[in-house]
């Protein structure tokens, strides 16, 4: 039994946990929710074990290094951090519906690592550029940041669902919103799933369609059912605050992640900043979240607007993480096909 096998089982465990959270929420079954928590805890322990096993295995192979060196390993750690953060939130906020919106992200990260062709679960030796003590500090801080933003994304989505559709007074926003959604979905299917734009359109169109069908049926749903579904969510003010807390947490770790990367770059390449696409995108992400914090603290933005900014911020996170693989640069070891 090796680590890749353990981790592929964990994928299903996270999937099951996510399913149970959703089931417990939609059908109002507290036992399913409790079970979901236990499944998530077991998944997280297994995830931890998988990471440690991988670490040990690499030493047995004589190429010992911390398991944070390629896309597969980073995705596994990403899922690990999301589950940990979520389990802490569940305890603090004592609400399990958040799990229905965050555990699926951990599941998707693991599933993507296991299923996407081109992502090899094999342990590879470190290339010279990665042989540094900064590797662990840089990757861990970045991914804690990413995971916090992922959680903030889930919570912001919940906030927007809880508040319901806002009637747009300006007509152009009614067109702009679906268009924005389509562009983002298109971009991410190109980045994450397929190698050409035509296929991306074929994938993106049904995804957007399904999204709007769900929105349509949600809007036609009898008020009683809607109320019953939403009553399980935490209060909007609490969602708002939780999302904000997660953003703060993510912002601290993103900053430390960028800084550790800069110090590392200076010791490896002789410059702390070189406008490499990955560096630039991490800075773009930092700018977006800095905007969110200033808007909230200094301009008093709350609720919807902050939730939308949080969605944009997470899109920037995803692009920093995956999208940069399309662009030329020095961070190629995070690439697909490696």
């Amino acid at each position, binding site marked *: 039994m090796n680590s890749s096998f353990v981790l592929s089982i964990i994928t299903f465990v996270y999937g099951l946990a996510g399913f149970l959270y959703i089931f417990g929420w939609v059908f109002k079954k507290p036992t399913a929710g409790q079970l979901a928590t236990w499944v998530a805890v077991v998944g997280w322990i297994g995830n931890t074990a998988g990471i440690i096993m991988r670490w040990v295995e690499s030493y047995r192979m004589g*190429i010992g290094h911390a398991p944070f060196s390629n896309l597969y390993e980073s995705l596994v750690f990403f899922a690990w951090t999301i589950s940990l953060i979520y389990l802490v939130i569940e305890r603090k906020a004592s609400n399990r519906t958040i799990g229905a919106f965050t555990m699926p992200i951990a599941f998707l990260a693991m599933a993507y690592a296991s299923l996407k062709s081109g992502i090899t679960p094999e342990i*590879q*030796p470190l*290339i*010279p*550029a990665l*042989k*540094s003590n900064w590797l662990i500090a840089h990757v861990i801080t970045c991914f804690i940041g990413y995971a916090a933003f992922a959680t903030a994304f889930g919570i912001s989505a919940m906030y927007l669902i809880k508040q319901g559709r806002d009637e747009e007074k300006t007509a152009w926003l009614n067109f702009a919103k679906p268009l924005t959604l389509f562009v983002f979905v298109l971009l991410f299917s190109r980045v994450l799933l397929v190698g050409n734009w035509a296929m991306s359109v074929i994938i993106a169109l049904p995804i957007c369609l399904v999204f709007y069908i769900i929105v349509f049926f949600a809007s036609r749903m009898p008020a009683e059912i809607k109320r019953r579904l939403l009553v399980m969510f935490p209060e909007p003010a*609490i969602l708002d*605050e939780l999302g904000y807390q997660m953003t*703060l947490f993510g*912002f*601290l770790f993103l*900053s*430390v992640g960028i*800084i550790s990367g*800069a*110090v590392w770059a*200076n*010791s*490896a*390449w*002789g*410059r*702390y*900043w070189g*406008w490499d*696409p990955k560096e*630039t*995108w991490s*800075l*773009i992400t930092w*700018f*977006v979240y*800095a*905007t969110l*914090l*200033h*808007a909230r603290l*200094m*301009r008093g933005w709350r609720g919807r607007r902050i939730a939308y900014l949080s969605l944009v911020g997470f899109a*920037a996170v995803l692009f920093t993480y995956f999208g*940069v693989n399309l*662009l*030329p640069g020095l961070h190629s070891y995070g690439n697909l096909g490696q």
Partner: protein
Amino acid sequence: MSSKEITSDLSVIDRLWKSFASVKLTIVLLLTLAATSIIGTLIPQNEAPMDYLETFGAFLYRIFSLLGLFDMYHSWWFRALILLLVVNIVVCSIDRLQATWKIIFVRHPRFNLARYRQFKNRTEYNHDGAADQLIALYEPVVARRYRYHRTIETAEGFAIYGERGRWTRLGVYVVHFSVVLLLIGGLIGSIFGFDGFVNIAEGESARAIQLRNSSEKFQLGFEIRCDDFNVVFYDTGAPKEFRSSLTILKQGKAVMQKDIIVNDPLQYEGISFFQSSYGSLPPNEVILNFTSATTGMVYSKKAAINAPIVIPEDLGTFMLQRYTRQADFRGHNIGEAFIGVLTPLNGSAVEITLPLKFPSFDKMRKGKMFVAIADFVPRYYTGLQVSRDPGVWVVYSGFILMIIGIYLTFFMSHQQICIDIVRHGKKSRIGVSGTSNKHKLGMHKKVTKLSERLAGLINKE
């Protein structure tokens, strides 16, 4: 100048100050920087003009190059945006610091009881005993939790006031200052530092390096020699290590020796040398085998460029002329090769191609003897990234301050609590409330916890 002009002057500065003190401007600038930064990740930066011309065509090329999009992070407009942001940050900070300063640096913070009675988080409970005995009981509890505390006589009884973390209000200024430090550090680096590269062949040395994005060379003031270069591969074929043995020479004397690998540079006189690339060089010497067609004898000879060799059996002389990376044979690229000239004793000279990969290539000529490269020692050059950045310590201080500042700003807060004790004859009524400049929800919990603890203390007695 009349006094009227002065006042209008002032109002212009005032208005300018006000517009720079606006957080709206900050938001606009941050989003603009985020959006424009994307461009430089889509268009590869600092490539050869010809490549751009080919990709974008003449029209787009002219527009892009006018906007500086091929080196956009150093273009005037991007620099202007960053400068605007920094000015905005500085003005905002100064503008707000005055008010913050007054809150932080006071000996006795103002205490307004009426304010604490209005807080939503105020919890109240009754006590059957006299109010005054509670002072001795409650003061130590507050003192343990709040660094600053004092007990105040009020109209109806007294109040214990405590606060802590007043100085954490400075956190945001620390973050803003750190951003300014990053800019200053970057400026120092770009004015007093340099960035370049040098390729040194094994056994050779360099006194100057090529500056990046410039045709100029930079004289080091000392000599750097590459004694050896080695590249090691894993079984998978992936590189494991690039190692250059370097020696620094001053007036011909070795003053420093170090093996560098990626992530472990050499530093001398403030200049750092980083392992950055490598490449192979044509061998200096090769071993040639001359095989005679008549006798079948093989003669091995060492050969160097432009050094003629006399071939035995009176077959003439042979001389290596040059090395080429891509030799051509009937329109096919046959890779690295040496080109030599064979001059028979009687007859005209023939040019001979000796590919490194195909040793029996010359057999095809069907001459009196054929020449083959029997052996050669591969030679490498090491590619070094060379830089000096005196601003790096300013930038690093900025980094440290930024992390501390963000922690202070978002994870610590200025907390104030008040225990309001009101006499009701022989009994008393206690109200606990508090406030914090951040994390109102967390403060709410804290106040509840504190009031539970305080109420518990009475019941114990």
